[in-house]
């Protein structure tokens, strides 16, 4: 498992022109391995094909009008 992730780190870092020594490769692989195990739950979550990525994220439309709820309180 670790050597597989280290291979991935070496290959992607080389592809991105990011120089890493072997000690860094090992440390970065530990982080990626931890994230990969966390991501397993997200990968298992069913998401229908039509669910698009969130746009520039907006938690809800900004409320219209003159804040009647707030003003009345």
């Amino acid at each position: 498992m670790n050597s597989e992730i280290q291979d991935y780190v070496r290959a992607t870092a080389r592809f991105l022109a990011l120089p890493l020594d072997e000690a860094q490769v090992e440390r970065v692989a530990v982080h990626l391995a931890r994230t990969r195990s966390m991501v397993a739950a997200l990968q298992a979550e069913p998401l229908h094909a039509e669910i698009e990525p969130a746009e520039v994220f907006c938690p809800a439309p900004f409320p219209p009008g003159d804040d009647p709820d707030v003003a009345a309180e």
Partner: protein
Amino acid sequence: MITGLNIVRAVHSGEMLAEEALEHCIARIEVTDPRVNAFTDGTFERATREARAIDAKRARGEVLPSLAGMPYAVKNLFDIEGVTTRAGSKVRNGQPAATADAVLVQRMQAAGAVLVGALNMDEFAYGFTTENSHYGPCHNPRRLERTAGGSSGGCGAAVAAGQVPVTVGSDTNGSIRVPSSLCGVWGLKPTFGRLTRRGSFPFVASIDHLGPFARSVEDLAASYDAMQGPDALDPGCHAERVQPTLAQIGNSLQGLRIGVLGGYFEDNAGPMARKALDLAATALGATAGVIWPDAALARVAAFVTTASEGGSLHLPLLRERAAEFEPLSVDRFIAGALQPVDWYLRAQRFRRVYRDKVLALFQQWDVLLAPATPVQATPIGSETFDLNGSAVPTRPSMGLLTQPISFSGCPVVAAPLWPEGRQGLPLGVQVIAAPWREDLALRVARALESSGVASSPVAGI
């Protein structure tokens, strides 16, 4: 040490000059900061100019603005004209000084507040402890050998130490709420998109929020109100107008549906976090057992989003100068830059579904409560802490309870509770409202303050 609005009232009435308030503030910084290390930069000359301008206005009989004479400081990722914005890093030391203030600094200045300096933080905001290897760790004024939390650790510590009544920081995954919790001060993470980020150094554009810290809810609301306003030039600023809160914080809670989050938020809370939550829930008569949707998945999605966007942002510098980065976070930045795009896109698709579930929950509730951190402040240098019998890594785990909430964009006030009494360490409770309802979170926070269970005294150092 009086609160910010009491300084403003004294300046308005002529009992105190703005310059006198500033002198008290600078004296307190000079006495305490060698032990706290909250400040990275002082802007005392500028502050003197701003304070004198307020005093001159009053002398001319002009109407003073809402925060006239109130000293404050900002996390050092905000642009301050004439100062290099380092964002806690060493690699940005050679960059030119900012040519203009960040928009929120401009708005605070327009409201009459007096800027005294910039504050310590985790490098590029990637951390929850402010153990900055370049500028030294920020010490928690409640117990100096403990961390102040992060990444806005200097913001929490400066307020707790009574150095300034108000600070302004940033929160991506908990960076306002974690230091508020560990330092025992009030913090407000507004709705995502409420306050413009223009002129602040970014970390994760799709989750970055800015907001204030204070020792009273009144100061928190007044500062927040002064910083509100639309900004068409920040693509992440969705607010279309100002929605003031200060006049409403004392309104009754009658009719508000207040719940307590269980499940994930109970499982990841240590004994003191549960006790702090119980104190707040009892004071408010809140209903237990509310389940926040997909909290664990949201934490993962926030984690992946943070790593990818943060890693990508810094990739050019990581190629050239990785050795000069913070040793505590550089490997995480690199790992983030190498993450498969599938992880990131899946997190973004999940976020759309998650938003709908969170909004549905707020059809049934007005305000929800949860602890802000799993445990109280840990000793500086701790690699792990005990969470209900398991040793968990300190630096990422302090955000376990805040990350799912910020990923939803909901506004949160972190309220300072004292589960071991006022002589012990504080621990914060998150007061969470639906998007754009900061007024409700602040109103409930004010009720907690009035009841006496939440408070932020100046630390006795």
